[in-house]
């Protein structure tokens, strides 16, 4: 080792330069063209733990960890051939070895200084970047997490089903969040057995395939999922184990260094847990966890939304099925009634009426004074027979094989037979399936029956027109109009509920409303 100041232009100059460098906000180490330390300012003394006098004359490589020394020496030699100024941060971070053997990451800025003697010193300004690197890494993690959060939110919005939500969340966590694996498990509360709802990432095999049941307290897993289920809150590896304890071998074998399990707080009865595996240790800081919990929360919102949608759809389907069943039961009952009415009362009445005709002829021939009495009975009998036949008509299911306008004409003819209300048909054939047509005809018939019974109308118009989503059928009369509250089903007006049930069974709707010019309008939209 060379003695202090042996290659210097003079101790005074040396001292003067040191004085200047002590004012620098950075630790500075001066090195001569042979790579020996020639200057160390006060901050550099603090940083390295060495004094100026201890360092001067020593090879600068002694300030580096052993494994970096050879490479540094080559770079330094090359730099001395063409020395240029380099800014702080321009070089990749170097590690400085302190007197106590500890290391610290530093940025280095180099300034060449050509002396009057012709030799060149290089002043190396150092910055301790421990803090900055840690911050950068944290910012990087947070940035990535923010990006992931945004991406998951988008993916969740785009997802078409609850299954898609979890699958997309895992995919995005791996692709955007850079996690080794992400999985969502779901199972009965606190059962410790979750079914894998979705899984993604290169370390996915630690978990298993979608659909398999996983014991979350299985010692091969990280243990964070089980801990989170037990605690009913987020748990990372740092929470469940001694900070330096290794993760289970299976997870570690996939390169997993840290893990976090987040409860997905859905409204449903199950435990839903999102678990993330990372390739770096101690990643899941409080800040990051808060962010990830937001991700879990958003996933929960999406899952709840789909659950609610599904519940509504189930409810609608259930109602529709119920309506259909009710209608079928009603049709069966009506058919049975129709058969019974047709087979017995109508026939007996008809036979009696026929015999009464014979009786009348005899009375007319032999006892004309008795005729009015016979006619009275006869009229009553005819009235009853007609009413029964009308009931039959109402009870019988419509035929499916008839053209729409024919069917409506027939229905109107039958329903309004012997009634002063006239009818008119507007609009062409609607072009729907026979089943829809049959229900539409039923609705029209019910509406016409209501017109006959309640409306006292001069005219009724049955109209069809194509609209978006199907065919609109309307029955509009110019009668007395609706009593208050008559637009909804009520006891005694079974017809209104029946019309609504029929429309809903087909996925349409039906309502009763005041007509445009007084009177009443029944309007139904039926998908076609």
């Amino acid at each position, binding site marked *: 080792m060379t003695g202090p100041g042996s290659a210097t232009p003079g101790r005074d100059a040396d001292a003067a330069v040191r004085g200047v460098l002590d004012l620098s906000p950075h630790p500075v180490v001066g090195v001569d063209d042979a790579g020996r330390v020639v200057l160390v300012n006060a901050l550099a003394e603090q940083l390295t733990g060495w004094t100026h006098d201890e360092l001067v004359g020593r090879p600068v490589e002694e300030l580096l960890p052993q494994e970096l020394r050879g490479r540094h020496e080559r770079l330094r030699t090359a730099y001395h051939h063409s020395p240029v100024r380099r800014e702080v941060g321009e070089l990749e971070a170097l590690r400085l070895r302190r007197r106590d053997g500890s290391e610290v990451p530093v940025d280095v800025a180099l300034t060449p200084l050509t002396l009057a003697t012709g030799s060149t010193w290089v002043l190396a300004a150092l910055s301790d970047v421990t803090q900055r690197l840690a911050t950068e890494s944290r910012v990087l993690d947070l940035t990535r997490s923010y990006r992931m959060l945004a991406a998951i939110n988008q993916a969740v919005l785009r997802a078409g089903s609850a299954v898609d939500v979890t699958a997309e969340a895992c995919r995005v966590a791996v692709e955007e969040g850079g996690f080794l694996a992400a999985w969502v498990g779901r199972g009965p509360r606190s059962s410790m057995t979750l079914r894998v709802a979705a899984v993604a990432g290169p370390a996915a095999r630690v978990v298993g395939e979608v659909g398999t049941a996983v014991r979350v307290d299985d010692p091969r897993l990280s243990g964070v999922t089980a801990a989170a289920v037990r605690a009913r809150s987020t748990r990372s590896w740092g929470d469940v184990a001694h900070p330096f304890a290794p993760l289970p071998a299976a997870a570690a074998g996939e390169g997993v260094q840290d893990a976090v399990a987040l409860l997905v707080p859905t409204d449903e009865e199950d435990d839903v847990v999102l678990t993330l595996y990372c390739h770096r240790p101690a990643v899941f800081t409080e800040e990051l966890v808060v962010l990830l919990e937001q991700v879990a929360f958003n996933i929960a919102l999406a899952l709840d939304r789909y659950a609610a949608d599904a519940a509504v759809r189930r409810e609608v389907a259930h109602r529709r099925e119920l309506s259909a069943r009710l209608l079928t039961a009603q049709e069966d009952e009506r058919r049975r009634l129709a058969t019974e009415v047709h087979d017995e009362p109508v026939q007996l009445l008809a036979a009696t009426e*026929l015999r009464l005709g014979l009786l009348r002829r005899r009375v007319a021939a032999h006892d004309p004074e008795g005729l009015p009495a016979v006619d009275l009975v006869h009229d009553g009998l*005819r009235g*009853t027979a007609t009413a029964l036949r009308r009931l039959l008509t109402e009870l019988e299911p419509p035929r499916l094989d008839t053209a729409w306008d024919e069917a409506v004409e027939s229905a109107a003819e039958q329903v309004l037979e012997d009634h002063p209300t006239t009818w008119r048909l507007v609009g062409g054939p609607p072009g729907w399936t026979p089943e829809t047509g049959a229900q539409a005809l039923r609705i029209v018939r019910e509406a016409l029956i209501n017109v006959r019974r309640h409306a006292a109308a001069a005219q009724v118009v049955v109209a069809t027109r194509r609209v978006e989503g199907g065919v609109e059928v309307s029955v509009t009369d110019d009668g007395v109009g609706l009593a208050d509250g008559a637009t909804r089903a009520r006891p005694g007006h079974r017809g209104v509920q029946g019309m609504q049930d029929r429309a809903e069974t087909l996925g349409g709707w039906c309502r009763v409303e005041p007509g445009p010019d007084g009177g009443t309008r029944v309007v139904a939209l039926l998908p076609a």
Partner: protein
Amino acid sequence: MRQTRVVIADDNRAMRDALADVLRSTGDFEVVAELADGHGLVPSVQETGATLVVLDVAMDAGGQVGAAALQALSPAPVVVAVTATDDHETVVGLLEAGVTGYFVKGTLGDGFVDDLLRCARGEVILALPHAGRALQQALAR
């Protein structure tokens, strides 16, 4: 005057009996067969030489089926529907099948025997509302 030979087909006993009694009451008709469905119509008409059939509609092999089968005979009898069914399609169908009389049960009145006699002579009597439209439609087919 020669009696008109009639076959009555109706699945209701009370109705069948009433028809038979009423037809026999005037001496213009001879009821040669009473059937409870439409299956025996053709042989019955062939065997008895009946020229008039009173046909119920809502019964086995009755209505349009029975009328069409009878229409295929030569000579074909006059077929008169006496029925509780009066919907448009049924009326049109029966007219197409060759029915020339149509009466609705419960509204036959004391003139029924005379009406039937006129039908037997070849007149067309469609004794129900809106029969005209049904006839036009049957003719248009």
